[in-house]
Every structure is written in C-alpha cells, then in structure tokens.
C-alpha cells in the first residue's frame, strides 16, 4: 500500500497539475483579447486580396476637370471648393461644392449640369450629385454638397480637359 510520504508526494503533483489546468482555463478566455492585440500589432487582420485593384482605371493618362458654378438670376453664393481636379479615367473621385442662400426667404432651386466640350457630358458618370434633386435652403443657410463621379475610360484620348459647370435655377412654387 501507499505510504503517507508517497501520498503527500502524489498530492503535491496533483496540486501542480491543477495549477496548469486552471492556468489553461484562464488562457482560453485570454485568447479573446490576445488574438485582437496580436493581429492588430502584426497587421494581419485581413486576407491580402491579390489583384483586386480596379482594372477599369486607365492610369496611362490624366484628365483635368475644371469645376465651375453659377446662378441664373439667384443671389446665391455658389462655388466649388477646388478650382479643378486631376484624375485618371475610370477613377472614382469626390468633389465638393458650397452654396449659401443670401436671400431673406427660403428658396428651392435645381442645379443643371453643363460640360465643355458638350460631347464630354456622356463620359461624366455621376454616382452622387446634388443636381439629382431640388435643394431647399432656409434664409441664410449654407450647405456643402458632394459630387461623386468618374470620367469614363471610354473617353477619347484627346479629351484631356473637361469643364464641369453647374447652374442653379429657382424652382417656382407650382399649383400642384
């Protein structure tokens, strides 16, 4: 049979093994924050996507788009935040316009786009534009509005400058 000394030694070893067990239980829970920290530190949180760049961008040439703004009989202050933007055909860009209603009453207006040369209009592909809907501004209100667009990579190669112009017309209240 086992001697008391032997039993004591067994209990000591059991104690050590229980420490490992409890430590590993803690380790299981510690893995949750550890994964996040280690992956962030090593920058390996994402699968590297190979060759998924936008193949529609024609990086071989640049197009300069000049941004113009005007009003038709409205005392609005309307301007583009940049004078022009240089881009590759196919590349999606965002530009911003700012408009201020200087009139002492709320005004509803609609912007109409124009391009020069006018044939360029079919190559300017807009995803988001303030010209898609009426804009109603309270008296003295200022608003910044984005235009998200690209110049199609089908645009002719000699079309290296496009003037993009917006003009606001007041929308008169109709009977409807």
């Amino acid at each position, binding site marked *: 049979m*086992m001697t008391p000394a*032997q039993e004591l030694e067994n209990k000591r070893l059991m104690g050590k*093994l229980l420490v490992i067990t409890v430590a*590993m239980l803690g380790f299981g829970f510690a893995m*949750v924050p550890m994964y996040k920290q280690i992956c962030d530190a090593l920058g390996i949180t994402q*699968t*590297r996507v190979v060759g998924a760049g936008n193949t529609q961008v024609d990086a071989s040439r640049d197009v300069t788009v000049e941004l113009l703004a005007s009003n038709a009989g409205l005392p609005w202050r309307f301007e583009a935040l940049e004078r022009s933007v240089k881009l590759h055909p196919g590349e999606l860009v965002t530009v911003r316009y700012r408009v201020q209603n200087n009139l002492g009453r709320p005004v509803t207006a609609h912007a109409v786009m124009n391009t020069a040369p006018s044939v360029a209009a079919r190559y300017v592909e807009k995803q988001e534009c303030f010209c898609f809907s009426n804009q109603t501004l309270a008296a003295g209100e200022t608003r910044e509005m984005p235009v998200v667009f690209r110049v199609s990579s089908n645009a002719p190669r000699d079309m290296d400058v496009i003037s993009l112009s917006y003009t606001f017309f007041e929308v008169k209240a109709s009977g409807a």
Partner: protein
Amino acid sequence: MSTATHAHDTHGHDHAHAHDHHGPPAGFSRWMYTTNHKDIGTMYLWFSFAMFLMGGSMALLIRAELFQPGLQLVEPQFFNSLTTVHGLVMVFGAIMPAFVGFANWLVPMQIGAADMAFPRMNNWSFWLLIPAALLLVGSFFVPGGAAASGWTLYPPLIIQQGMSIDMTILAVHILGASSIMGSINIITTILNLRAPGMTLMKMPLFVWTWLITAYLLIAVMPVLAGAVTMLLTDRHFGTSFFNAAGGGDPTMFMHIFWFFGHPEVYIMILPAFGIVSQIIPAFARKPLFGYASMVYATSSIAILSFIVWGHHMFTVGMPAAGNLFFMYATMLIAVPTGVKIFNWIATMWKGSMTFETPMLFAVGFLCLFTIGGFSGLVLAITPVDITLHNTYYVVAHFHYVLVSGALFAIMAGIYFWLPKWTGHMYSEGLGKLHFWLSMIGFNVAFFPQHFLGLAGMPRRIPDYALQFTEWNQISTVGAFIFGFSQLLFLYIVISTIRGGAKAPDRTWEGADSLEWTHLPSPVPYHTFETAPVVK
C-alpha cells in the same frame, strides 16, 4: 515477487493469491464504489462500447438516408442532429473513454504499481461519464431536437438553437472534468508510482504515449471548457464573445475551439500509437525498432499539435502569412509521424511474424492510418484545402485516421490483452473473420468518399446531386457491413469472458512488458502490492 525480474519468470505471481481474501464485493455496489483500477478500466471499456454502438447506429441512419438522393428517411434538421451527436458521441463517448479504459487496466501493471495514484478520484472520473452521456443522448428528446450545428459547435448557429445546446454544453463540461481528473491520475501514477528500476526510458511505449496524452488533455480540455462557457454566457447572460450583433466575432470561436481541437486529434491517436507499439514487436518477435526515437517523435507530435489549429479554417479569411504558417507547420508533423511508421515497418523487417488477430488489426492500422495521414497532407496544402474544405474528402480523411486508426488500434488492443484480463483465449477464427469483415466493410464505406469529395459532394447535407449516387450506395453497403460486424466483436468478447481455452500467462511469446512476464492470466484482483524490481 519483489525479486522476480527475469523476463521468463511466470511463477513469481504465487504470492498474489495470498491477497485473494480481499476480493471484490458482489453485485452492483462492487461497480458503484470500486476504486480498483481493473474494475474501473472494465467499466470504461464497456461504457465506450455502448457509446460506440449508439454512435454507430446514428452513422448507419446517416448512411441509410444517403443511400439514395432526395429525402427518404429523416428530416434535414434531424439529419444534422445525427451528424452532430454521432461526432460528439464517438469522440467523447467512444474513443477517449476506451483509451482511458486501457490506461486504467495497463498503466499500473506495466509500471509495476499496485493501483492508480488516486483511486477514489478514478471512480469519480468514470461515474461522471454517465450523466454526461445521458445529457448528450437525452437532448434528442427535448423540443427542437439535439444539437444540429456539427460537433464543432460553431456559432452563430449554436447560439440560436434550443435547450438541447445547453445540455450539450453541460455534457462537454462534465466530460472535460472527467478527462482532466483521469489525466491528473495517470500523470501522477506514471511519475510517482513506478517500480524500482523502471526508469522513464524503460517504460513500455503505451505508458509513454499516455503520459504525453494526459499532458495534452490537461492543457486543452480547460480551453474547450472556456470556449463552451463563453457560448453559454453568449446564449443566456448577455455577453458577446462570438455574437456579432454585440461586437463579438464568430471566427474567434473557431480559433479557440481548434486550439483545443487539434491537440484533441492527437489525444485520440497517440494512445493508439502506444498500443500498436506494444503489439507489433510481440508478433514480429523483435524488440521495437528505435524506442527512443518513438518517444521523441511522440513528444514532437504533441508539441507541434499546438501550432497547427489554423489548418481547420483555411477558408475563413486568415491572412496569407497565417495560411502559409499553418500549412508548413502541419506538413512538419508528417516528419515525426513518418518516423513512427518507418519504425513499425523496421520492427517487422526480418521478424518471425505471425498474424493472429491483434497483429492483423495492428497491420491494418498501419496501412490504413498511412492512407489517412497522406490525405491529411493533401488537405494541409492551403489552396487544395480551399477546394476540398467541407467536402466528403475531409470525411474520408478523418475516418481513416479515427476509425482505421484509433478504433482499429483499440480492437487490436482488446484482442491482445483479453486473454490476460479474462484468462481465456478468444476464438481465433472468429477474430480473424471480424478483422476481415471490418477491413473490407470499412474500406468499401470510406474509400469511395474520397472520390465523392474530389467530385465536390459537400458534407452534412441529407441530399445530393444525382451523379454522386453510385459511390454513395457502395459506401452505404460498406458501412452496414462494418457496422453489423461489430456485433460479432461483441459476441467474441462476451464468449471469451464466459469461457474458452485457458490462456497461458505469457499469451504471446514476443510480449515482454510486466503484465506478461510477472502476472498470471487472468490477472488477480490486486497486483504488484509489492513492487517488482526492474533491471
């Protein structure tokens, strides 16, 4: 007894009979209260066999449904429950307890100890299995049916199902506690209770593999317990470890689960390596080739098992660097595994081999496990795995390593030690019949699943496209041959326990560990109360 050391001394056991007055009590209380390692080992093995038949019945129901395309026998939800509980029952109910049963029977005898270090805890480790099994199988009868998420218990599915999930989680907790207690017992027994002269590097390889397995168990079962606890609190206590709606990450569960899950794979195969390493030298009548390298290879496999979990999740969107790391680390494991395979072959080389049933199962193990190992190497290749992930190729792979690996080794071990345990020889003719039925049935069932997987048949779905019909029908036929031939195994074991030719003390002339050289057949209830001296 204490001086009986010579390998051929079979008379040294006479003193053992002096202790027979302290025999087991009769009836149920013998098994309820027993602290005897042999009784507990027997109970583990019977429990394992009962679970094996239960999990096997589920597998046959799965194969019956898959005999034809379309839905014939079971509802899809019930089919998913079958695959889930089949996996859990086989892993935690059949394979693992069977190896613990072997450890209980053999570790004390092979190192010359009287019993396990903590006999009372040993009793607890076993009896905890019963409520766990009842919870697991009983979950079929609660509203919503048993867990249907696959045995890997992935969220978010597992967070959404009914109370059967809570029963499954509790069952996993209890099984984990049982395994940890068993492991502490085995490690303490091996490190503290070896007979004088039994140095670590003289231990039989079965003891070595169990020592390493037990360390793996206490390292990873608590991690699984933590993972399922997090599932439980996500379900009921408002935490969001894995619940994306609350900022959690479902793939985090996969990382934690497989940190447990891959060492678990080796927990289920290392003791099988140990059993085979006892059997092949016995029937080749040569000592094991490369004993020390076997020990080091086993340790290397155990250590490497902690850094390969990612190969189970190549498709979740890990960074390329991660995928590459897990791919190379996984392939590295083939090196120590190859060392083992070649050592077994070298042991047989120019040996005086005979092919009794244990040897047949051991050689069957060697051939089929190698096939499973190679398909594992195929799956380790990241780009290949992305194609084969969750197909029947994976199902074929892990059944080759777990059925023809772990289970064949268990059967080999049963045939090998049954004469020692019962004192009777099993029927060699029936044993060989059982082997060949199992061998043929298994390969007919699972080899075609490689083809199905390569052709793109996904796993865990009760229906399939028409072009997969023929191989599925062949697979089902094989599964039924394999399944029903296990009833023959049951018959052989029972009739061997009841009677049969008297087994000699050293049943196999090439077997040289202490239970063969120092103990009679059948082994008395108490053995090695005075430790033998090993030279």
